[in-house]
């Protein structure tokens, strides 16, 4: 019996913390099985064998912050049948997109004594701003169960079952008492995309939005609730300006609550 050729998988890193690709190595129980089902052709963090494309599936971590990377992502796209953007950096620009709201020159001189050595773009942008992305997996970091579901679904040739509700809905399903209602703790759960497993409220803190905006998030209504709970404009501004700061609904809501230096 002829063995069916295993699909090839590549894992790419752009500007990021490595946490999302680490999620793949964190699948301790499934890693050897995954490695048996797919042919890992390019995964620099895990292997010295780096094989040239084309690849069936590319997992892309990180955002685009340099001209060279804007070019590299085009090559990744051209050599991949399916491109999956993994994590808040790849899907929204990540925490480093905070530069989009500032003068990157000021940022460089805050960190480096000789700014002239540093080559970087003024903005941090998601993968989809540069090339066609077939699937986005949200989160800072992604949920490894969702990653395994995507890989399994691709292997089976079916649609992956990925969370598309809000953290608020996931939290109700988990049976956690609402931290806003019960404790008056400001929470981004109603406007945040699910997928994390609604961890924060279960640990007694409000959701901090690391999975980015949910579909049709009513951020203005939530901000009004936060005000009633005593949150000031600056803390609302900060809450929307974290790991998904450049995602449109969060960007808009943070802008509506003033700039750090010029509170509205």
């Amino acid at each position, binding site marked *: 019996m002829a063995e069916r050729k295993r699909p090839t998988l590549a894992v790419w*890193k*752009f*500007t*990021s*913390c*490595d*946490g*999302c*690709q*680490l*999620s793949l*190595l*964190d699948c*301790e*129980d499934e*890693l*050897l099985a995954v*490695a048996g089902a797919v042919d890992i052709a390019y*995964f*620099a*963090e*895990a*292997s*010295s*064998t*780096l094989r040239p494309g084309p690849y069936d599936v590319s997992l892309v971590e990180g955002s685009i*912050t340099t001209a060279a*990377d804007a070019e590299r992502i085009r090559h990744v796209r051209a050599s991949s049948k399916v491109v999956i953007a993994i994590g808040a950096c790849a899907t929204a620009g*990540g*925490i*480093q997109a*905070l*530069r989009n709201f*500032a003068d990157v020159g*000021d*940022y*460089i001189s*805050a*960190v*480096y004594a*000789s700014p002239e*050595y*540093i080559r*970087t773009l003024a903005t941090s942008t998601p993968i989809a701003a540069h090339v066609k992305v077939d699937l986005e997996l949200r989160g*800072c*970091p992604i949920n*490894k169960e969702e990653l395994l579901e995507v890989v399994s679904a691709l292997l089976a040739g079916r649609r992956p079952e990925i969370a598309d509700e809000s953290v608020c809905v996931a939290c109700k399903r988990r049976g956690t008492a609402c931290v806003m209602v019960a404790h008056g703790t400001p929470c981004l759960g109603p406007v945040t995309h699910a997928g*994390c*497993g609604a*961890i*924060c409220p*279960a*640990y*007694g*803190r409000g959701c*901090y939005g*690391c999975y980015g905006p949910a579909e049709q998030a009513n951020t203005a209504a939530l901000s009004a609730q936060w005000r009633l709970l005593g949150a000031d404009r600056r803390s609302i501004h*900060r809450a929307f300006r*974290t790991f998904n700061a450049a995602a449109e609904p969060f960007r808009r809501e943070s802008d509506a609550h003033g700039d*750090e230096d010029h509170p509205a």
Partner: protein
Amino acid sequence: MATKTIRLEYLTRVEGEGSLVLDVREGNVENVRLSIFEPPRFFEAFLRGRAASEAPDLTARICGICPVAYQMSAVHAVEAAFGIEVGGQLRALRRLLYCAEWIESHALHIVMLHAPDFLGFPDAIAMAGAHGEAVRRGLALKKAGNALLKLLGGREVHPVNVRVGGFYRVPTQAELAALQPALAEARENAVAVARWVGGFSFPDVGRDYEFVALRHADEYPMNEGRIVSNRGLDIAAAEFEAAFEERQVAYSTALQSVLRARGHYLVGPLARFNLNHDRLGGELLAFAAELGLRPGCGNPFRSILARAVEVTYAIEEALRIIDAYVPPREPSVRAEARAGTGMACTEAPRGILYHRYGIEADGSIAEARIVPPTSQNQATIEDDVRLVATQGIHLPEEELREQCERAIRNHDPCISCATHFLRLEVRRR
């Protein structure tokens, strides 16, 4: 003399992106440049104006491999500025969380990233064919660390449960007790993996490093201690910037840290072991000797043994903390903001991690300084590569390249941390 260029496009089995350039003239190694091209992310810049209470969650994102280290240095530094003390069981829980990160991070490096170098495999998956038991034990070990991390932190990568003053939620005795069997099994796996690693053959290299690590009155160091070295350095975290200087080099987006008085130094497991072996207990120290790791060891290839000993220690320490655990009444102590400056240094899996925050009266950050372990080891890694390349200059290029990569991987560099890692280019003239 032949002029040649060897390129290694991308250093593998390290965390992040960088390259190595060797300038070879007339068979002599002239320049070694560890060039980190990981794009800068400007954490110290965007932290300005943020709430000090946000520092643990924001700085965790510097590194997905060691987020707990960032959270710990951040909370200790902010607490120093606010003038608050976190003691008792909350302090014990922080140490337990750090144990969890040491276990998962060291297990990852020992089995997935470093061991393949000694056995001639490109990766752990290829190695699993001939060394299936060791790889499975290593993965089980990593899983045990992650299970502890998930319970205490909410999730493995970027835990959500750490705050200035303590935690959002503390575990029940029963929740921690439920992990005891897995940790007891992890201890067996750690010992077996350590013995497997002890059987590797180690290149005969010895260097006279200045080792720098924390030193605590009675504990193997994690969250607290003075910064000490084998050449007489003995300072508080608050004196870090007086003793160390960060330099920028043209070829790297990571700053390099040096001792103002003496230059290059080494942090990490080998440094910690050499400076704190008397805090491991007689039994574990005897086990280290049995593996081939003795106090004073200056062979960077044997750092894998130090990691194996530390994993075993971290599991035993975790079991001790769980045994003695009584849930504190409150999950955190009250943290009231005040103007001030706070510094802290903790032992990340890769070595000391320094944070400083200048904080305003309203609790917002005016200034932030972060010095990760890999920035501190960078210059020393270059020295190691120079030594290995000089000794191996007549080797076939493929082998030379391998030796250089191994010399780098010995130190488990985290380029994402240093910003901020590897393509090897050898220019022979």
